[in-house]
């Protein structure tokens, strides 16, 4: 009975006893959830439009952040470094489409997936070759992101919110709203969705596959840059950032591989749940560091009941 009590009742008692701490945990979870959601969004966009499971999305985040910081180190002012980085990401998208994807059209999914792993490895080597492998500091202040912190006193307790986290959430919301507007209202956005629904039909009404692919990979690059800026401001810029890309994978499982809203909701859910689990169950009972696997096991358990994810398309098999 005692163990049952400590596992199933006691954590909730603690949550109720210290609501200010609970709010702090929730906020931290929310912020990391927003970042997971952003990376997952890059995956979803590319998968939706081309059925390519883009493993390189994580390294694109690192690469974008590294390019931004690297350019700034070499004397480019911050306001000019951002458009220049975007230009680099465009060249990257163009290059990937031309060199890797175009020759691989019509290959099985697993071959394309492997190709993106090849791209990942290449970008790791290339990024380290050009910018060096050591850790860098994100140019937060130069970009005009506030670095102070806000303090609140809810329930007679204490709550600390960093301003750059608020900026991160605001930026993410802006990006998602902009992206959804683009996808739903502009003709280019409609072309992307058409391509995602049916390649053959989209091609036959005159939508250019290669243009759209470059565009989609470029958008993924923009998302990567935003993610890189906000995550880099929290944790510094290094290749260790790549591990947060793995975190986007359970988000995809949970939300479904082709659902934009799934990526966002799944990201927030995983971010908050893994923080709660780590603080109230992981550290007291399991020796901590449960954040490395909690998201995966959680997503796995959910998938056992909904194999296509919470918002994924139901797979109907015919013979």
């Amino acid at each position: 009975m005692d163990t049952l009590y400590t596992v199933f009742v006691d954590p909730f008692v603690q949550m109720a006893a210290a609501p200010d701490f609970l709010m702090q945990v929730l906020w931290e979870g929310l912020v990391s959830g927003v970042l997971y959601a952003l990376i997952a969004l890059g995956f979803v966009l590319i998968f939706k439009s081309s059925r390519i499971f883009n493993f390189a999305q994580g390294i694109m985040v690192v690469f974008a952040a590294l390019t931004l910081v690297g350019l700034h180190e070499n004397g480019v002012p911050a306001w000019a470094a951002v458009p220049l980085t975007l230009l680099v990401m465009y060249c990257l998208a163009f290059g990937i489409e031309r060199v890797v994807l175009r020759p691989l059209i019509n290959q099985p999914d697993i071959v394309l997936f492997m190709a993106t792993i090849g791209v990942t490895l290449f970008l790791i080597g290339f990024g380290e070759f050009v910018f060096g492998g050591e850790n860098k500091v994100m140019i937060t202040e130069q970009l005009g992101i506030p670095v102070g912190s806000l303090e609140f006193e809810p329930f007679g307790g204490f709550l600390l919110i960093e301003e750059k986290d608020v900026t991160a959430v605001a930026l993410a919301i802006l990006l998602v709203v902009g992206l959804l507007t683009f996808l739903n209202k502009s003709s280019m956005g409609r072309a992307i969705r058409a391509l995602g629904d049916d390649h053959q039909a989209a091609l036959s009404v005159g939508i250019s596959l290669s243009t759209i692919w470059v565009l989609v990979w470029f958008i993924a690059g923009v998302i990567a840059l935003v993610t890189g800026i906000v995550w880099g401001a929290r944790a510094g810029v290094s290749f260790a950032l790549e591990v947060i890309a793995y975190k986007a994978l359970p988000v995809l499982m949970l939300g479904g591989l082709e659902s934009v809203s799934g990526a966002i909701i799944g990201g927030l859910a995983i971010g908050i749940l893994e923080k709660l689990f780590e603080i109230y169950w992981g550290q007291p009972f399991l020796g901590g560091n449960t954040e490395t696997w909690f998201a995966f096991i959680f997503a796995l358990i959910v998938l056992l009941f909904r194999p296509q994810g919470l918002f994924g398309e139901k797979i109907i098999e015919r013979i």
Partner: protein
Amino acid sequence: MFYRTAGQFKTTYSADQALYPIRQDAILLGIVLAVAYVILPMVASEFAFRALLVPVLIYALAALGLNILTGFAGQLSLGTGAFMGVGAYACYKLTTIFPEMNIVIALFLSGFFSAAVGVAFGLPSLRIKGFYLAIATLAAQFFLVWLFEKAGWLYNYNASGAIEVRTLDLFGLTVTGPTATPVTQYYFVLVTVTVITLLTINLTRGRYGRTWKAVRDMDIAAELVGINLMRAKLTAFAVSSYIVGIAGALLVFFFKGAAEPNLFDIELSFLILFIAIIGGLGSILGNFLGAILIVALPVILNVIPDALGIPVSSATFEHINDMIIGALIVTILIVEPHGLARFWAVIREKLIIWPFPH
């Protein structure tokens, strides 16, 4: 001329179904085995054993295990590294709990532990497919590595948190530990790999192999003709994890000598996956070709700048190595998505019809 198959008549079914029905294939295999068993041990240096031959064999074995799951049964897995870890830790625990146990027995028993864990993590494959399953296997990857780190019992509560291989004897010869000679270790690994490869070739040609291929090619159709999907997928997970586990135990006991949990992290999984893909999914030979390429490439790359007299720092060299392997993966996928094994198949076809191209 070298590969004339004309005149080799089969008069019995067993001759037709032999492992190598064409005489030249058997001769070639004999030559390869002779080189591996006799010539290489005579000419190879200690560096070659430690940096090339032993790792090639071990990685090829791991890729063979993965290939059964991914290439034959069509279940993409990204958790190979963790299953290798299960094999290694199981072998470590067996040799410490039963110090008298023969290393061969410990090795083959430890495979059963990884097979059991593999089946446990393979259970979701009954409902989850494709990329969803690939991500699900990552759950095994991250969870098991975390477990290796946190469960003190697994590494006998060492202060270092790592497992270290002690000296073990086999028939009076020291085979593991720092005092073992590279040649003994090489022979041990070679014999193990040869035996398992032979068994695997026959397994994939037989009833189970054909069942797996049917599931891979179209699972619904396979179910309609009476194949039990659950049994097919779970046996694939079991056999695959068994072989992968043995490869993991070999990796620690005969190559690294000691292992920290992060040896078995996701990079190892990807390395094995690269070998399997570059070599060719669904082939046995490909694993060996892929392992040779992946292991030898950095060694060769290391030699080139020295030969040309260009000084390259080791960090730069590593970045270039990453870039080249990445580019190589993409190139091979574009040129020949079926991998290096397919290259060999093409050469063999050409040799058979040579000098008449049609």
